[in-house]
């Protein structure tokens, strides 16, 4: 069994030589990360050397070495080359000589156009504005493509897999029922709780039934379901299509002459838009049930009374108004999800960004359209 080596500290010194030439003595163990001497003095001397001087190495006491030695040598070579000093590599260990030759063999590419200077604030504001305009244009173009594709669907000229459509319908419809049920139930309960507290002050507690039913059916069911679907299905659409883009699967469709919008986007949009009204009605029902649970618990009314009050509060135009809103919200969520998926970049991080944008864009579009539709409804007297 050999004695363990005692490591010697790394040494770099410049020995005197005739008329401006330099002899660099390297000794000890030169290992990366272990107290290597700085070569700054030597590099300074090289900067002030005359062209035509020579530099040699003396490595008789050099111990074990690795990358730590080679990076220092490369810095020396670079400084020497910049000042016309000729370097004689003979004193170096053979492995190091070969590595230096390999490293310097291919000249560094300087025309790669990577500018690493930071942009000023005004520049960044400008760039953000241009980006926002571009995103707006993209969305309009995408909506147009989607419309054309729907046209092809209706006339039977679209290329897609019917079994995929049914899978999307199942994923966007049936599989969303549990979470929609849970959230709608709780929202109904919250509404009823708040309603009873306030209305009881006026002896009008029973009107909680009206409150919950009308709120859910006219607006809340549609908007809550849409937000849930944005986080659930909009994100999924963006992630699926985004990952396919990263894996070049979308390119593969295009080269086969299949329109990726027809194949990937429109079936997903149709699935979500078909399911939204159904999910919204289900959400209204669950909300009313939740309200009923709280109402019966906190009020002095019977089940029969509460039910009759609920039924008398609801009008058909409330229902249709709410369902129309759900169609609009569903389309926007699906648009946001699939658009961001198709616009995804080419890395893992890009898929994450696309998913986030899909959800945020979906929610923003929902809220904006909710406001617009509400104003329209008010003016139309719906």
């Amino acid at each position, binding site marked *: 069994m050999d004695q363990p080596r005692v490591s010697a500290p790394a040494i770099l010194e410049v020995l005197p030589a005739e008329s401006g030439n330099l002899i660099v003595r390297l000794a000890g163990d030169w290992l990366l990360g272990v107290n290597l001497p700085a070569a700054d003095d030597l590099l300074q001397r090289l900067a002030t050397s005359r062209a035509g001087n020579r530099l040699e190495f003396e490595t008789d006491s050099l111990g*074990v070495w690795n990358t730590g030695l080679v990076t220092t040598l490369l810095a020396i070579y670079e400084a020497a080359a910049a000042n016309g000093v000729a370097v004689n590599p003979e004193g170096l260990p053979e492995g190091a000589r070969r*590595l230096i030759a*390999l490293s310097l063999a*291919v000249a560094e590419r300087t025309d790669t156009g*990577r500018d690493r200077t930071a942009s000023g604030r005004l520049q960044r504001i400008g760039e953000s504005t241009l980006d926002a305009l571009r995103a707006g244009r993209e969305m309009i173009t995408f909506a147009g493509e989607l419309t054309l594709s729907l046209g092809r669907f209706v006339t039977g000229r679209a290329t897609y897999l019917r079994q995929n459509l049914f899978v999307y319908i199942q994923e966007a419809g049936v599989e969303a029922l549990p979470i929609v049920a849970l959230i709608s139930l709780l929202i109904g309960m919250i509404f009823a709780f708040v309603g009873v507290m306030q209305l009881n002050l006026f002896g009008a507690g029973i009107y909680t039934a009206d409150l919950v039913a009308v709120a859910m059916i006219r607006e809340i069911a549609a908007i809550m379901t849409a937000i849930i679907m944005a986080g659930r299905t909009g994100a999924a659409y963006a992630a699926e299509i985004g990952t396919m883009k990263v894996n070049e699967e979308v390119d593969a469709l295009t080269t086969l002459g299949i329109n990726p919008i027809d194949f990937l986007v429109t079936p997903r949009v149709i699935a979500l838009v078909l399911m939204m009204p159904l999910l919204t009605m289900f959400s209204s029902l669950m909300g009313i049930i939740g309200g009923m649970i709280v109402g019966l618990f906190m009020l002095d009314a019977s089940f029969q009374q509460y039910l009759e009050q609920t039924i008398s509060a609801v009008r058909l135009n409330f229902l249709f108004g709410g369902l129309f809103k759900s169609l609009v919200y569903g389309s926007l969520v699906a648009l946001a999800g699939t658009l961001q998926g198709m616009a995804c970049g080419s890395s893992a991080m890009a898929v994450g960004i696309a998913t986030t944008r899909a959800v945020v864009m979906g929610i923003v579009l929902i809220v904006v359209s909710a406001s617009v539709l509400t104003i329209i409804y008010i003016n139309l007297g719906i």
Partner: protein
Amino acid sequence: MLTTTDSERAAGTAHIEVVDLTMAYGSFVIQQNLNFSINRGDVFVIMGGSGCGKSTLLKIMIGLKSPARGQVIFNGESFWETEREDQEQMKRSFGTLFQAGALWSSMTLAENVALPLQQYTDLSGPQIREVCSYKLSLVGLAGFEDFYPSEISGGMKKRAGLARAMALDPEILFFDEPSAGLDPISSKLLDDLIIELKESLGTTVVVVTHELASIFSIANNSVFLDPKTKTQLATGDPRLLRDSDPNFDVRNFLNRGALHEDSTT
């Protein structure tokens, strides 16, 4: 980390030993009773027909998958029989080049090479940057430090993957099908690079491949795995195996199927 003096090359002692190794996915056995040694400084090829378990064997050697039975011994220490922390320590002396490079797509080439250095050394930011530029220059990618993997070609991705595999000056380099997807010239250049690095750094190299041209030009030791009998058929210098191994399948493979059934030479 590899440390080298020109006078200190341990000749003849096995760097890696595989003893009675059996690999399986559940109850589905891939290979059994594998026994071979790899010496320090060897360029060792794991070869065999498709589906023989070459890549699985590589994964077991680098610690990605555990064997059903048997040992992999590095410098006398058995990898699969040591504690987790010791395994992590041993893994730091390996560098692996995966088939398509497996670069982290959200990081630049420099950041890819820097990650092992940030994890396992105390170097400062500028020092790490210097080392990254050096490693990338060794594979001919100087100037591409700030490029993303999606912006470079397949061959460049492999070379960047190699630079990253060498970040910590590993004692052993593992390559999984390095020539896959490369044109003949790029493949030859990569072979030359592997040899040059091996000779400059004294690294032991383990390659999974079935490119005959590469095998004969770089390898000096090998193991031949058979998918039918699920064990090794031969070990040794591929050129000797091609010319004179007693097993027909081995010679036929290495002669690219040119032998006839009744051939004896």
